[in-house]
């Protein structure tokens, strides 16, 4: 019994962390129409940034600044934001598929940099020597994981509230207008370039927060954590949940993560032994099928975007 609860805590923690990243992507794609194909780079910048800033000094790579945890986490978010600023200034002039291709390239470059720049990121070995915050006081057991889950849930809720307020405000209206028709928005006195950059950076900072929490949870990050697969998973979560709907984004994260975990478990349990080595690949194929299937049959997602009828200032179903 305690094993199951303990597993549920683990599952919910990871799903909630991923949900935060999906919310960040929803701001970029769902609300502003920015096709970020390199989610994992910003997630990774947050994870690496947090662990480098908050870890203990290491002989073989940079970092280990031993900052107190909240500062380390904030630092990770700043790292993601800085990366987004540079990438945004360079690529946001591109639209749709071109933006997707270039941001995907950025993510691949990021992974390669982390894999090869040993002085910076520990190379393929990743970053070690990170102490999870308050571990000395709470120990490593179930209680710690439960409190960490609460902390993650709190941040997930805060991110959700922040974004709900934002997209319900005139700023959100402006984002949607830019998504729908940039030329028309410009002719009505708006400056889409600046707003797109702001939305891109804000979304990426949120992904950086998710990455920082992910790194904290495992007290470790390596290039294996920033593979393109994670970008696809996060996209699948948003598409299944419903782009443009924050609740949908969260639901999508939980659903896809549940399906991913269940398919992994199912394959390891029931697939014939000679198939076992392909289990990982089969999972990728499945997630690809889910994305394609959703886009074909229900492109608006399980929880479609709601139309804002601002007469009352509330969304209508």
């Amino acid at each position, binding site marked *: 019994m305690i094993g199951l609860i303990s597993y549920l805590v683990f599952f919910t923690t990871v799903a909630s962390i991923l949900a935060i990243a999906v919310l960040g992507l929803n701001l970029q794609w769902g609300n502003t129409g920015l096709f970020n194909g390199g989610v994992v780079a910003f997630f990774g910048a947050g994870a690496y940034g947090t662990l480098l800033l908050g870890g203990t000094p290491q002989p073989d790579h940079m970092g280990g600044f031993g900052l107190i945890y909240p500062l380390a986490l904030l630092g990770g978010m700043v790292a993601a934001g800085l990366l987004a600023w540079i990438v945004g200034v360079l690529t946001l002039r591109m639209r749709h598929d071109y933006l997707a291709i270039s941001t995907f390239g950025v993510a691949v470059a990021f992974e390669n940099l982390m894999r090869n720049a040993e002085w910076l990121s520990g190379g393929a070995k990743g970053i070690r020597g990170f102490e999870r915050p308050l571990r000395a006081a709470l120990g490593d057991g179930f209680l710690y994981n439960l409190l960490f889950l609460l902390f993650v849930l709190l941040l997930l809720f805060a991110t959700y509230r922040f974004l709900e307020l934002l997209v319900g405000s*005139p*700023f959100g209206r402006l984002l949607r207008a830019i998504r729908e028709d940039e030329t028309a928005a410009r*002719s*009505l006195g708006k400056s889409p370039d600046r707003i797109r950059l702001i939305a891109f950076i804000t979304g990426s900072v949120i992904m950086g927060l998710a990455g920082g929490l992910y790194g904290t949870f495992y007290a470790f990050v390596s290039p294996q954590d920033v593979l393109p697969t994670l970008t696809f998973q996060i996209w699948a979560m948003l598409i299944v949940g419903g782009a443009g709907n924050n609740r949908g984004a969260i639901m999508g994260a939980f659903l896809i993560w549940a399906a991913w975990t269940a398919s992994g478990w199912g394959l390891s349990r029931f697939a014939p032994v000679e198939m076992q080595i392909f289990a990982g690949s089969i999972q990728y194929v499945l997630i690809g099928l889910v994305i394609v299937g959703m886009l074909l049959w229900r492109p608006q997602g399980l929880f479609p975007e709601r139309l804002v*009828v601002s007469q009352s200032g509330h969304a209508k179903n």
Partner: protein
Amino acid sequence: MADTVFTIDGLTVTFGEFCAVDDVSLKVRRGSITGLIGPNGAGKTTLFNAITGNLSPDRGTVTLNGKQVTGLPPDRLFAMGLGRTFQIPRPFARMSVLENVMLAPLAQIGERLTGPFLSARAVRAQEKEIRVRAMEVLEFMTLSPLADHPAGKISGGQMKLLELARVLMGDPEIILLDEPAAGVNPTLAGTLIERIEDLNQQGKTFVIIEHDMDFIMRHCDPIIALAQGKVVFEGTAVEAQSNPILLDAYLGARVDA
């Protein structure tokens, strides 16, 4: 020239070898409804685009209220009082009609990222004002029953009205309308024309591209005709009706001006 609201001087736009707007000079009188006519491909919409900064001219200048504004982007020009609509309507399709209109006012404090957090009260107060005005404008354009509808799902004619409603929210001094009545049913077109007349009485200046000659002759003064990128006629409706060059140009014949 206190009564000239904007001036175009020697404006030229080329696409490769093709000269879409060829050395066009004209003045628009404050408070006028200036009609811009010409056959398809005469360069009318290109001229609009060059004026409003949607594309940059190769040569020539645009002067708005005595200020040189050539090549300024559309958002700057809108803030300076020059609004426009599009020949093919560009609604924000997945937003409600009301939201489409509420977007347009300039200098909204809530359009800052920090707006809803650091100045929530001011944003709410401003939103209330904007909402009231937006409903008035929708009422004026006979669109208020559609306020809650997605703008992408209303009729083409209603989209034309919505285009004008959005522009009105920014309260520009000059409005360029690109075929406002094209594809609009006669009843709606009638409403549209009435509204344009009302607004003109309130002091707004219009420049209107239109193929409906009845509308042009009845409501526009002066009328300017373009053909093959050049101005071939400028005068009143009465002059226009007896002008052989204009009739030629409108029928698409070659003009050696």
